């Protein structure tokens, strides 16, 4: 069945990134279709963020290509960036701005003007419940609200592709639930990549999981398949087995 919903949105081919002596991402390839929610798992420093930064055009790959909706990110960065909504790790935003002026700035950059921009801002503010803090400067907001502002910035232009780096990190259980419902709600038509350390999240919202460690993809499959790799049929256990095995092998090779 190849409906429009399932067309490939993101194609990552043989992606490689080297920071001086550190080989952060090694030969990573995968693709994400519309309607898929891809969970990016892996220990800290595994290369998750680096991969996301290359997909969104913030970093240039050492080699390999990223194609988003048919556009290569290195040759057509503006087109790619227009079709992506990206929430960087920690949801950075301009602290001295009020929520409203920040969203106006984003709307303007995203190409909305006047009444249309106000409409977009209204819609996203309602969706994410930002009404009561609109006039407040972002630096005075709680962590949860800051993250919401980041989310609003990410989805204001109703992008086709969503990339979120640890969107629920540091939030309380209720806020986590909110973010997850929001992602689920949008999942149908969009191609979404989220990175997370919370494995239950993969079960809750992802249709696919990729485990990455030391820059390499170690597992690519559905959450059910991931769980099945463990004897206990437990996703945490499966994650531990896959990642520790890899590091052990690596360690051995380094010694010999």
């Amino acid at each position, binding site marked *: 069945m190849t409906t429009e919903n399932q067309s490939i949105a993101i194609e990552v081919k043989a992606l490689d990134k080297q920071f*001086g002596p550190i080989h952060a991402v090694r030969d990573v390839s995968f693709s994400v279709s519309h309607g898929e929610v891809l969970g990016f798992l892996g220990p800290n420093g595994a290369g998750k963020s680096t991969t996301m930064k290359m997909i969104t055009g*913030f970093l240039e790959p050492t080699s390999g290509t990223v194609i988003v909706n048919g556009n290569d990110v290195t040759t057509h960065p*503006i087109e790619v*960036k227009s079709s992506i909504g990206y929430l*960087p790790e920690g949801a950075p935003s301009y602290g001295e701005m009020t929520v409203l*002026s920040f969203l106006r700035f*984003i709307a303007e950059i995203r190409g909305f003007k006047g009444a249309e921009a106000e409409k977009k801002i209204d819609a996203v503010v309602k969706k994410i419940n930002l009404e009561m803090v609109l006039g407040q400067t972002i630096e005075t907001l709680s962590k949860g609200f800051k993250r919401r502002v980041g989310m609003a910035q990410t989805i204001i232009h109703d992008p086709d592709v969503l990339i979120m780096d640890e969107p629920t990190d540091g939030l309380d259980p209720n806020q986590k639930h909110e973010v997850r419902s929001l992602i689920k709600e949008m999942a149908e038509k969009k191609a979404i990549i989220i990175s997370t350390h919370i494995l239950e999240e993969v079960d809750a919202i992802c249709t696919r999981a990729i485990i990455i460690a030391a820059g390499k993809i170690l597992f690519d499959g559905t959450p059910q398949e991931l769980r099945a790799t463990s004897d206990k049929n437990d996703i945490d256990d499966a994650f531990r087995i896959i990642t520790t095995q890899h590091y052990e092998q690596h360690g051995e090779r380094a010694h010999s």
Partner: protein
Amino acid sequence: MKNISAIMKRELYGYFTTPVAYVFIVIFLFLTGIFTFYLGSFYERAQADLDPFFRFHPWLYLFLIPAIAMRLWSEERKSGTIELLMTLPISVSEAVIGKFLAAWCFTGIALALTFPIWITVNYLGEPDNTVIVASYLGSFLMAGGFLSIGSCISAITKSQVIAFVISVVICFLFVLSGFPLVLDFFQAWAPHALVDAIASFSFLTHFDSIKKGVIDFRDLVYFAILITFWLYATVVVIDSRKAS
């Protein structure tokens, strides 16, 4: 163009919602006052012109402009907002130009607020106002030159302190190369062409010539090339960070 103006507006908003703008403007006006009346002996000279006012601008800018420019990129890098900015659908040059124009516009506002001294000198005597207009223009262009250097240095480092110190040093070289003391040193032995070349790199040389009321095409070109060069260097630095 639309993106440049969006970035510029956001930057200016940033200046005026934090104390940065007000502190800078107050200090700038206070220092221009001191320099003009005490060091420049504005009254004692008993001449109806603003030379004692403009004469000290390069030296004031030397410290004040890097203080404005240091935050242009260092702050974005430090707070992580650069990742947000650079993944929006804008080009690096649009971001660089937008930010630069905001800072330049801001120094323009500070400069415009020195207007009481213009009124004063017109009240006290009959100055040549075309010379004053030219001097304001020259001072504004020179501020742009300082800013473009600061923009590039700020793109190199996360630390605003480092950005400030290095910018001051480089700006100082650009001022110094037109200073009589330095030129005299070279004049003694170097060929004329070399001395002229060194002098022609200096802010002072070009500012002095505009300050006399003669807006020479060559001086305008000098500042245009200088600003373009340093902004281009800023783009290169930011681009190279993407690959590293």
